């Protein structure tokens, strides 16, 4: 299915093209940005408190005189890495349990489906709060929380795909030839399920990034002085009226990142599986 996609397809859709360019810029920012910025993100400069954007500080400074541009650049590392890693982890968990539930059916399926439903019964942010609040705040707690929030959605999806794929003739043939379930799952079902899974995954990365930002905003994420976009907004929201740039730039960063992922995800979905179109 992936041979349906090509670079030429990408150029046909302007929003998707812009989204890809933005995302590439974002990754570059996260990787090399910290080397290129002129200020360190935690350097306090009491002579330049709450400066509006200007020549010395392109995004202005915050209440402690720290350069906002560099803090946004450093923050991109956290947001991107948490979003992508948590998405990957919950994808792995979801694929594993989804395949098992979908393939073995009956009681196994009933049991796991119930487990999925229980995890999905929690509003995502509330569950993430519950999980990350009971452990010391930081990178691990955020990743764990987001992974545990996201896996069940993937699992249910993979289960559905597996249920329909296992009726295919080639699976039946494989079974007749004596292939073990593990082999069938790994060699037949998983490869055919992968495109749909990837579509779902790419559509959810944006949500994971928003979840990380929300947890940071609530103080449950990576702790200061490490800058994260969410905590920057939270720390500076008292100054929204007097110094709005302190809040606007991190929020803009989050929005642009998430919208790019969403547009790209939409594009990939439209190309790979038009039936799923929302």
């Amino acid at each position, binding site marked *: 299915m992936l041979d349906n996609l090509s670079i030429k397809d990408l150029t046909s859709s302007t929003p998707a093209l812009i989204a890809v360019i933005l995302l590439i810029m974002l990754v570059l920012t996260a990787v090399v940005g910290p080397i290129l910025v002129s200020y360190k993100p935690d350097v306090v400069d009491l002579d330049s408190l709450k400066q509006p954007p200007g020549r010395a500080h392109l995004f202005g400074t915050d209440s402690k005189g720290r350069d906002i541009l560099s803090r946004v650049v450093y923050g991109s590392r956290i947001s991107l890495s948490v979003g992508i890693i948590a998405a990957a982890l919950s994808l792995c968990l979801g694929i594993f349990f989804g395949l098992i539930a979908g393939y073995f059916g009956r009681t196994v399926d009933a049991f796991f489906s*119930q*487990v999925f439903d229980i995890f999905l019964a929690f*509003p995502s*942010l*509330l569950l993430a709060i519950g999980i990350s609040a009971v452990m010391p705040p930081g990178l691990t707690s955020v990743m764990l929380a987001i992974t545990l929030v996201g896996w069940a959605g993937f699992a249910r999806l993979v289960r559905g795909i597996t249920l329909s794929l296992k009726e295919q003739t080639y699976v039946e043939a494989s079974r007749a030839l004596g292939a073990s379930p593990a082999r069938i799952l790994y060699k037949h079902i998983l490869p055919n399920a992968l495109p749909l899974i990837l579509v779902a995954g790419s559509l959810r990365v944006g949500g994971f990034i928003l979840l990380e930002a*929300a947890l940071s905003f609530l103080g449950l994420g990576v702790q200061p002085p490490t800058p994260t976009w969410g905590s920057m907004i939270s720390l500076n929201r008292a100054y929204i009226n007097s110094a*709005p740039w302190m809040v606007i730039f991190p929020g803009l960063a989050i929005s642009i990142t998430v919208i790019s992922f969403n547009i790209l995800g939409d594009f990939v979905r439209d190309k790979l599986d038009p039936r799923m179109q*929302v």
Partner: protein
Amino acid sequence: MALYILKRLLLFIPTLLGITLITFILMQYMPGDPVTAMVGERASPETIAHIRTELGLDKSLTYQYFMYLKRLGTGQLGRSYYTNRKVSDDLLQKFPNTARLALAAMLFASVIGIGMGVFAASKRGTNWDRLITLLSVGGISIPVFWLGLALMLLFAFYLQWLPPSGMGNGSLINIILPAITLGTFSLSYIVRVTRSTMLETLSQPYVAAARAKGLSESNVVFKHALKNALIPVVTLIGLDLGSYLNGAVLTETIFGWDGLGRYALDGILKRDYPVIMGVVLFGAVIFVTMNLLVDISYHFLDPRVRVKSEQ
């Protein structure tokens, strides 16, 4: 019909129990000793031992879980570590505020959302359509807390049309900004789903037949197509309650709204674990109950589902 409801209720119970189990497991990881939290660190060892036995903390985890269930059954959610007020009392007091906000947000999201979705579908392929689609993608990409701050900046501080925060003794003007903030995420989904179901419905044969009969376009769209297109949208509106519960935590914090969300935040900041767990549990129960109600109503709304399940 009643059988369907009964079946759904039966499936509902294990999920409910599962929620309590997960919350209970999470509570085991809460740092700190609940006994010392209650009586202070300088209490005598006998007091501590006594309270420990009373709370059943010396028994097995399974026993403790059942004690927990028993307490939940009587509506006991513990007491705040800080105010010592009953968490259940606080929840019952603050929930109406959140419900009011969520209702306002839902109204905003569904009315504007369906309107925009229908409009976009009718103007398919034009710049209007592209604009609305872009806006709806934007709506699900903007962090709720930032949107709230941006709206506050624009409408409360720059234009000074609306109050920046507070519930203002229940006057309607205070609910506008929080409701828009809370509802935007859901609005965007509703626009997308309405647009796509409208497009799907409008391509159905019976629509072509209606047009061929000579019915006016608005008659076709509103009287025939819309009703059918709206079925999945209605369920979406109900199911989106999850986004309201999530968003409430962030929106209420920004706008100083005294509801469940801000209660949760206060609990988080103070590490007031009974409060945090109480909100998580309460939120999940409401969410799952609403889903159940929506499921059952969907059964009534969509004749095709009803017929199929009665076969």
